[in-house]
């Protein structure tokens, strides 16, 4: 299982990266924990890899008023180790610590995971739940993409092939915010079969739920207070139906249970 031949460039900064990325057959590479297997399996065969993993600009973690700015190449391990402060950091830490295995978390990046958009991965669903924006850089400058609309389907995003995710700007959660995150994996560390997440931040008037690990984009429902007040299975099954999971009995049940357990966890906080 050896990859097809490719060329490799390590640009100095984002604008350098964009220049290289604009050429034919070029693909962004960061942690490569998802890309590496795909290369070895030969399911992707890029002409050129543009390695942005160590660009300083993409590795920042800082607070900006009531938002948190996370560089796209911050690793899951850095988040797991508590490098992101506050209540938001606690939520991110909980998600990060259950991604794959530590060896993968040491290299894999939050921006990379989001851009790859595997439905069964954690960040696409978690970031859609949290809300905020992704700042992406392209040949015609930078633009903002709301996180709940970033992933558009199975391995599909709003990102163009000549664009790079640079920064994630996340709304800081209030100290009294409650969250729940529950995913079902058949064995530890593997991709999720179902994800349920909820976020309630009354200070900011936020009540959101996400159903992830679907066949496409994560399903986000905002403002459904009933879900939080009365997390019975029927409510959650209804949400699963809205997420397009009605056809398969087991999948529908599993996603509904994931959501229900996420709500129960949030309520225990």
């Amino acid at each position, binding site marked *: 299982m050896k990859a*097809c*031949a490719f060329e490799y460039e390590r640009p100095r900064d984002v604008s350098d990266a964009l220049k290289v990325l604009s050429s034919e057959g070029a693909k962004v590479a960061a942690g490569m924990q998802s890309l590496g297997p795909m290369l070895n399996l*030969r399911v992707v065969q890029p002409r050129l890899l543009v390695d942005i993993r160590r660009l300083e600009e993409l590795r920042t973690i800082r607070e900006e008023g009531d938002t948190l700015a996370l560089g796209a190449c911050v690793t899951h391990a850095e988040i797991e180790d508590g490098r992101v402060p506050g209540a938001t950091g606690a939520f991110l830490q909980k998600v990060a610590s259950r991604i794959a295995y530590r060896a993968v978390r040491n290299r894999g990046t939050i921006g990379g995971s989001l851009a790859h958009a595997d439905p069964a991965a954690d960040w696409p669903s978690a970031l859609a739940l949290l809300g905020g924006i992704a700042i992406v850089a392209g040949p015609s400058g930078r633009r903002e993409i709301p996180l709940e609309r970033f992933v558009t389907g199975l391995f599909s995003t709003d990102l163009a092939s000549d664009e790079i995710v640079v920064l994630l700007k996340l709304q800081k959660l209030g100290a009294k915010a409650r969250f729940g995150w529950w995913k*079902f994996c*058949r*064995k*530890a560390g593997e991709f999720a079969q179902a994800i349920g997440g909820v976020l309630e931040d009354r200070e900011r008037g936020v009540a959101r739920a996400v159903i992830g690990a679907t066949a496409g984009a994560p399903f986000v429902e905002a403002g459904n207070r009933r879900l939080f007040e009365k997390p019975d299975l029927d409510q959650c099954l209804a949400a699963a139906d809205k997420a397009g999971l009605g056809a398969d*009995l087991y999948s529908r*049940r*599993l996603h509904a249970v994931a959501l229900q357990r996420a709500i129960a966890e949030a309520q225990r906080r």
Partner: protein
Amino acid sequence: MTNKGVGARLPRKEDRRFLRGEAEYVANLRLPGMLDVAFVRSPMAHAVLGKIIKPRGNEDRVFTAQDLTGVRPIRAVSALKGFKVSEQPVLAHGKVRQVGELIAMCVAPTRAQAEDLADEVELELKELPAVVDMVQARTNPQALVHEHWGDNVFLESLVDDDIASIETKARVKVRRTIRTARQHMSPLEGRGVVCEWHKRLDQLVMHSATQMPHLNRAGLAECLGIDQGAIRVIAPDVGGGFGYKGILLPEEVCLAWLCRKLGRPVRWIEDRREQLSAGANCREHHYDITLYADDRGRLLAIDCEATVDSGAYSSYPFSACLEAAQVSSILPGPYKMERYRCRTWSVATNKAPILPYRGVARTGVCFALELMIDAVARELGMEPHEVRLANLVQPSEMPYDNITKKHFDSGDYPQAVRRAAAMIDVAAIRKLQAQSSAQEPRRIGVGFAIYCEQAAHGTSVYHGWGIPMVPGHEQCSARLTPDGVLELRIGAHSHGQGMETTLAQVAHTVLGIDPQNVRLVHGDTGLTPYSTGTWGSRCMVMSGGAVAAACEVIGTRVKAIAAKLLEVSAADIHLEAGDARVSGTDRGMSLADVAHVWYRKPQLLPVDIDPAGLEATAGYKANVDTGTFSYACHAAKVAVDIETGHVEILDYVVVEDGGTLVNPMIVDGQIYGGAAQGIGTALYEEMPFDEQGQPLATTLADYLLPSATEVPSIRIDHLETPSPYTRFGQKGIGEGGAIAPPAAIANAVNDALAAFGVEINESPLTPRRIVEALARAGR
């Protein structure tokens, strides 16, 4: 003084190199000028193979069946009457019969470049309907895997008996269809070959990750048309086998041919995707089984029709029908009954040729039978372990010839069940169950499984199963070197069993030599006596017996020499702690001193000393061909989450009896490892195929191997009833751990779900299957 012989928990000598990254697996070998091979493999399960178009400009680096002139196909013909012969071409021509079948061989300086070449080869394939379901393949085939057969059955067998008379008097009749999924043994190291044609010795030298180098040699000789002496097969450090490496590979024949053609060493290392897509070859059984019992749960009869999915070809050396032949003879398990009828079919399908995975047919048989025992128990409202106790062969009846003429050598089967029931604490579990509310999503259950495992069987048994290569005697060559180190040479080979340590322990018990001064040379046809290899839990009995025999010969000669030098009679000498001592005195000399005299001062030797000296080859033959019967009762306590179908193993106990344990630490390790694989079979591992015969779990993201979070802490209790038939009373135990867990866990899940009227009779018990079964039952 610490015991370092038979019975000691001696830490392993061989650990040193593995802990430092100094092991020599086949992929670590570097031969000058070595080239790498990648294969073009069939993307289809069943197709007519037309033209193979080699990449322009690189035709001389790609080889097909047409190029391999003089190379014969692989043939493994069972001696059983009615066996249908299939030939497996080493490179396909005319037709392909499984996804992953070899079509072309590409050679290049690196593996990556060889894969590039393989990608450029074009194939003309006309797809045929795939034969995927074994029952349909037999009863209503859409296509024939081997047209000249007229059907898809390698072999049918029948053990007949009069069931009709039982039917009328049985109070309980329970009938079920039970299926086990196809699996992949998945050793962490795949298969691999490095070989060269050695010019000076005019010999093929092949390093292969194999469990049976002598049999690989025999198979290579047959396929290449050269004599066995012109072939040397060496098994280096091997990273796990479990049966996966007990085969003559078409890849081995191809590389053997290639290295001679090119005059350069060549290498092929199997990668995980090749392994999973081309090698899922075991465990797939189908049972239509009926148990008849009286109102006290006593078994009257078993009536069974069993089908084994044997894949596309008959693999060498075990053949396609070993497993189905086994089913007939071992289905009755450790139980008594009045009647037994069993019909089996080994069926050909468009999948990888079957190989015996750890436990062989016993895992499937145990699954079927033990689930039926629990079904009988539910029918009668009895505790499942009580039904077992009512039917097990009693210790007072040992040795016992059962209904299929298996000769159980020794043991207390009921005691194993009673102890397991106590350890898992059935009473406490029943209390918990009674107390749990109907709303509780976590349901607790308990399940048992007991088996007895025939191992180290001798010639007549294998001959009776029609195996093409019948194991006979086992030899060991022992030699005391001039400085008193003992070298042991055996043809069997370790792939994790720790023989460098355990056989040194045997030598210590016989000769008194420190295990640190014992060196094991194994698994090399150029250096070691013939052996059919490491499989069937045979080595501790067979190789252990041979080592003891060879050491005894050496010991006799050592005593004769020491007696002369110490001026006593040989009868006054005993061997202890590396010395030859005069009993009852403090006089003695070291083994090294004795060796020194033999090699350097023969003038001091007794006149009548055997001139063969401190070198001896001795053999071991099983006293009784039916071998040994180790046994164990496993018990599992599980929690089933009825909302998600997830099964958590809360407690797992094994009460096992392996007779005398040569190294209890290693025995425990074998049980833990086997049980982990059994848990994989029970809950996680399956290779599904679609209607076109495409394997659907071709990476480890889909083929789920249990990790440390899926395998609980396992508690083991040992009974030790020595076998009356082996050198130290030891029994073969290597496979046992993998036999019972699927049955124990399925029984526990079914116990947990009994209140809903759910019974699952299929492995693995995936969350999906559990949720769907509950939904069907209205939950």
